[in-house]
């Protein structure tokens, strides 16, 4: 019987010929990523073990990205605990280099790998054909100590992409549309696999944006077929695939969706769920206090280019705080070279250091009582960006930038 990409990656990690959905397998992990959201807890638990050991330190990557620069004595203590442990144990450690998932994509992830991340958006790595999935810190600790873990082989939802996105419509609109269609729990425990000739029209940034958000449909992971675009990205970053897997023709899917990219429109997700979507135009006119262009979802150079092109020669609306936060140092430096930071600063934006920023809802850009944020971040749950009585709309880089200019939700074609 044929296998999906997810099944093939798990089979490789389990050193088995084949696996099928709903099998439970013991797997060896290729990477274990953890960030400052929870690593201090992992360290505490590790230190409470009777025989603490790290199975393979070369597989650990620890990244400080959530509260940076540090905003409280509490997080400072967590950071110190994490930093000291990484240093003492020789763990690969990043601080100030960007959002964990972007740092992983730029520096570590290879097609065919199975990666645990102590962060739900680890599913982003599917853009590079790797099985990334989020775990809690207990699962993480077990994997850290043993080098292995168990996984339930997920069923796979197959998405065949056809055609091309219209001008002014982005991957963000596509994935919000899909989540709206299948609901916030539509892919729970499942893998979302993307392929089809339409995939070839999407660059790596778009693919990362799509895979990153699949957890918002409940997915365990997201996976995309590896093609020349993937290979070019790897080459550019000096890496080779671990293994390239395509799904078998007779692979078994629990559901197959055919998506016509040309039918996608600018979308926003309204408070307080990611699947609460509507046409961006239907949300137009809603007053905003803050706009956020950044995050592991849409903080890449391609996103900043989209925003910069829209805001060039214009000003941020005086009633809006427009935060622009590159996803990584590499993105920041590229944006400087291309003159994008100049454009944003000239327009009156607040340009912050690469980090999770208001997507994480603490540390910077936090919104207050009754305030409304439009964001390229990952989530719009109640209270996610600050005060429990605040409102978050999710949208593409283009819609967020247009809204920052207008002071209310607007699509780029609505700018006067």
């Amino acid at each position: 019987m044929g296998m999906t990409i997810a099944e093939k990656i798990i089979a490789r990690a389990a050193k088995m010929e084949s696996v099928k959905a709903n099998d439970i397998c013991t797997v060896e992990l290729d990477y274990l990523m953890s960030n400052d959201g929870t690593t201090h807890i992992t360290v505490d638990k590790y230190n409470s073990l009777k025989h603490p050991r790290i199975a393979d330190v070369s597989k650990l990557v620890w990244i400080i990205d959530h509260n940076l620069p540090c905003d409280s004595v509490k997080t400072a203590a967590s950071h110190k605990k994490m930093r000291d442990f990484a240093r003492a144990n020789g763990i690969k450690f990043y601080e100030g280099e960007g959002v964990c998932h972007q740092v992983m994509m730029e520096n570590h992830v290879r097609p065919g790998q199975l990666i645990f991340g102590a962060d739900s958006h680890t599913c982003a790595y599917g853009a590079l054909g790797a099985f990334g999935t989020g775990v809690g810190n207990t699962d993480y600790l077990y994997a850290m100590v043993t080098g292995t873990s168990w996984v339930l082989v997920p069923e796979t939802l197959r998405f065949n992409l056809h055609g091309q996105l219209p001008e002014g419509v982005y991957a963000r609109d596509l994935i919000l549309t899909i989540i709206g269609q299948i609901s916030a729990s539509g892919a729970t425990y499942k893998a979302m696999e993307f392929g089809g000739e339409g995939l070839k029209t999407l660059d790596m940034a778009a693919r990362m944006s799509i895979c990153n958000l699949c957890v918002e449909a409940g997915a365990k992971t997201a996976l995309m077929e590896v093609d020349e675009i993937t290979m070019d990205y790897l080459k550019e970053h000096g890496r080779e695939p671990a293994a390239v897997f395509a799904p078998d023709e007779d692979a078994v899917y629990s559901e197959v969706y055919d998506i016509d990219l040309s039918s996608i429109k600018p979308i926003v997700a309204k408070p307080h769920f990611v699947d609460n979507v509507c046409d961006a135009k239907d949300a137009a006119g809603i007053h905003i206090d803050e706009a956020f262009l950044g995050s592991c979802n849409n903080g890449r150079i391609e996103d900043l280019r989209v925003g910069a092109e829209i805001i060039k020669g214009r000003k941020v609306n005086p009633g809006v705080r427009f935060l622009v936060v590159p996803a990584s140092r590499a993105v920041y430096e590229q944006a400087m070279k291309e003159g994008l930071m100049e454009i944003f600063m000239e327009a009156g934006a607040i340009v912050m250091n690469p980090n999770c920023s208001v997507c994480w809802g603490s540390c910077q850009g936090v919104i207050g009582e009754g305030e409304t944020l439009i964001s390229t971040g990952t989530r719009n749950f109640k209270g996610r960006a600050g005060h429990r009585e605040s409102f978050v709309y999710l949208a593409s880089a283009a819609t967020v930038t247009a809204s920052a200019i207008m002071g209310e939700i607007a699509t780029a074609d609505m700018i006067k």
Partner: protein
Amino acid sequence: MGHTMIEKIIAHNVGREVKPGDIVTVNSDYVMLDDIMMPFIVSKFKEMGFKKVWDPGKVVIICDHLVPASQVDDTRAYHISCDFAEEQGIGNLHRSDGICHQLMTEAGYVKPGHVVFGTDSHTTTYGCVGAFSTGIGYTEMAGILGTGQLWVRVPSTIKVNITGKLPENVMSKDIILRIIGDLTAAGATYKALEFTGDTVENMSVASRMTMTNMAIEAGAKCGLFAPDAKTAEYCGIELDEFQASLKGDEDAVYEAVMNYKAEDFVPVMAVPSNVDHVVPISELGDVNVDQVFLGSCTNGRLEDLMAAAEILKGKKIAPYVKMIVTPASRKVYKEALANGTLEILSAAGAIITHPSCGLCCGRTGGILTDGEVVVATNNRNFLGRMGTSKVNIYLASPKSAAASALAGKICSAEI
């Protein structure tokens, strides 16, 4: 009898001669209100029964401590600031353009000879262009908003005269730290400091700002530099007769005169936890550094960033050391972007934030924890200022800070 600079400024403001000890009522040329104090200023203003500010054109509101917000209640101050500006027709509102003390002169408000009050102790900064500026509390600010006036006691003056050429790695920060060390934290309380001599005449306005900014750390009411051609260029003006006359007369009466030879200065740091506890870096021994902060109204200007970049160019800061760079203003950020300074700093591994008070005000921007050591270019190393009371804060010049980031240990630029 001759007059000191501060006597001349106050006399011009009140229209009669004054002497130290006189209590006079002055008119404000500008007032500076910062976001963190705005909720209190506005509530006192209303409580006092005022409806309209005396002159909206002379009021400048600057959001710099709490933007971008790090805690959920921070935006309250932001909205109170914006709403008050709108209600009162105050056009001089800066929502995210940088630190108040940088903007007051940079954005063209304060000019030589002005009398300016601000709700922040480092308001002394504007003495860099020869203005009398000083910090006040929010109740007094509320009073000025209603009346345009405030009483002041004319201060006596300590003249600080510096002559000669500074050694290569000594910056104006090293000078002012040494002076504060010599004066002690209370040594200039109620007094004006007047900086003179060819060393300061040869300094940029930016370097002078570092010194006036920190005058308060010796307790001073204000710090003053005589306006000159550089001041005029910086302010985009030609000095009028009054402004050109703003220097201490030869027969002015000074409470004390401190004479320094520029050649005698060495790179120093203020060590935990007093600004007046100043020690030459060469005597500090082996101290590991966890974090370096380059920024603030003291040392977040273009020349400061460039001085650090010169040291860091083509190099990487030490592993596990964080270097946080927070430019003083949007203009500084843009200039540092345009001339490649930010690129150098980023390539060296620095974390570059949006212009704001950042770590200096101790609410975000790189808070530290027990046992950590930070070398910082700002103005205060008080207990608990940047995190717990067990954080060790060393105040230093941008060059010494950059050198320490590179080495991962406290050091000055020559090592």
